[in-house]
């Protein structure tokens, strides 16, 4: 049993191209193989079934008998899910960006990348080290602040994160900073007290800086499976998430769960992380993401 490793190494692209190649028939087998490709991309059972159902109906309605055309349809289908009702992200000033997510997904690194990006666009940026919990989290953010050459507001390890944010906002206001980016400690969404702490931070921002637009980005690791949906649900409830940043897409994971998240929670994907360096961040582009899913 389970001697599938060899089979597994077959390239999915090769397989899909074969599945969807010219002249192949549209039949149950084809849909099963498409289903497999979606599941392997972490799209999840429910959303996969929905997509396949809709695909089946469309091929019937539009009398499509050729597999190659199905590829276009499928890409279109996913693209529509991702783009539906999405307003483009606009960087305004002043803006406060709160970065949240579970442990180790890439929050602090993403802040470094975002700060770099916004500075390149001519904005003044400040970092706020509100992860006061994890060992050396503050030092880590400081290294990034030095790298991108922007100010950072920090307290000691173990201090109250909401009060660091408070200080950060006062300082940003006084200095007329365009974009304030707040790091927070990684927290699993099922930990009530930690989620309450986040709610408190969010409140401080709304109360102390009502002139600023607030964006709350949930950082998700592309290697995460179905649990990401649960993460998005609960973080959305607590912190009013406005967008998703999908990291570690430079690996082999597909991050297909964001399709389910968009479909179910209507959270737009804003950026993707594709490495550990300062430049390894891109604005999310639905078209290339869709084609990457089937690579």
């Amino acid at each position, binding site marked *: 049993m*389970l001697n*599938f490793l060899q089979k597994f190494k077959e390239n999915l692209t090769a397989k899909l191209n074969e599945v969807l190649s010219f002249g192949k028939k549209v039949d149950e087998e084809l849909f099963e193989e498409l289903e497999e490709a979606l599941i392997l*991309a*972490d799209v999840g059972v429910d959303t996969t079934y929905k997509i396949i159902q809709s695909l089946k109906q469309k091929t019937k309605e539009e009398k499509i008998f050729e597999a190659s055309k199905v590829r276009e349809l499928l890409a279109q289908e996913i693209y529509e899910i991702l783009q539906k009702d999405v307003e483009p992200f606009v960087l305004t000033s002043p803006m406060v960006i709160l970065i949240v997510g579970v442990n180790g997904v890439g929050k602090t690194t993403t802040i470094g990348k975002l700060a770099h990006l916004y500075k390149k666009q001519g904005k003044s940026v400040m970092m706020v080290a509100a992860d006061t919990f994890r060992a050396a989290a503050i030092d880590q953010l400081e290294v*990034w602040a030095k790298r991108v050459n922007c100010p950072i507001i920090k307290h000691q390890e173990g201090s109250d994160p909401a009060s660091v944010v408070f200080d950060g906002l006062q300082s940003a206001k006084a200095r007329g900073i365009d974009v304030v980016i707040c790091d927070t400690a990684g927290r699993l969404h099922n*930990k009530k007290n930690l989620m309450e702490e986040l709610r408190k931070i969010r409140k401080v921002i709304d109360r102390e800086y009502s002139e600023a637009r607030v964006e709350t980005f949930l950082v998700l*690791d592309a290697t995460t499976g179905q*649990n990401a949906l649960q993460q998005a649900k609960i973080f959305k409830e607590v912190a009013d998430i406005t967008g998703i940043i999908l990291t570690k897409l430079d690996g082999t*994971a597909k991050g297909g769960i964001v399709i389910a998240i968009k479909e179910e929670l209507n959270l737009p994907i804003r950026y993707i992380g594709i490495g*550990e360096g300062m430049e390894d961040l891109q604005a999310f582009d639905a078209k290339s993401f869709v084609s990457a899913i089937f690579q």
Partner: protein
Amino acid sequence: MMAFESLSERLQGVFKKLRGKGKLTEKDIKEAMREVKVALLEADVNFKVVKDFINSVTEKALGQEVMESLTPAQQVIKIVHEELIKLMGSVESRLNLGSKVPAVIMMVGLQGSGKTTACGKLANLLKKQGKNPLLVACDTVRPAAIKQLQVLGANINVPVFTMGDKVDTADIAKASIDYAKSHNVDVVIIDTAGRLHIDDELMEELVRIKEAVHPDEILLVADAMTGQDAVNVASSFNERLDITGVILTKLDGDTRGGAALSIKAVTQKPIKYVGIGEKLGDIEPFYPDRMASRILGMGDVLTLIEKA
């Protein structure tokens, strides 16, 4: 999660029709297995692993007498549960530290999986067992990685060996062994930088550390929330380094943790410990039966079956 407690209910539904039948037919089993398949996929068990698993369980279940004490639904769950446990191996939460002194443990894995924290947790565990561990900072890449290890070391009063971030990591590892020998250290725990399994150059760096210090344990630290990609990651690290075991982290979340099964299936290496929190005491042995129940989304399978 959606399917959390519902596999049992869904199976009850499938079997409602066949009360009183003596044997499960192929059709009954196939229908039931479709539900099991969905449950496993929702738990992030790899698609191919699920397929093979379902095939083998279907064979086992076919033609079995429906035991009088069980409904068919519970019987199927019982078979599935038992097969999952078998696949996940026995309780093997011991470290094999060999006979040479110092023993060497090396942590490897993707970025952010929990390696550095796991180093601290193991050091804490070993210290409590009366050992004299040393933490070695071989992550020269991530900002403040060394500082992080130092903070953890200070928390549990375990020394940290570092040569900064400008020295070759294989040389650091080698030097740490000399240091250990002259400082009465009996276990050396090496933290390494997170890396992608497809990053050839960085994977090669790990091979060089391995060759420099011949670790007794090379532990792959993997995030329990990992999805379908867990098999690619685990098999790459295993092929390159011949890992000796796995530490599964962040099980204090509400993930079903199907990655455990995927990783075990592709590497055949034991899952030795699980991480259940951020604190250095938050580590436990791996229990295959608990993991099986968790993957099936039913903490109470066993009581359910016993009650029937």
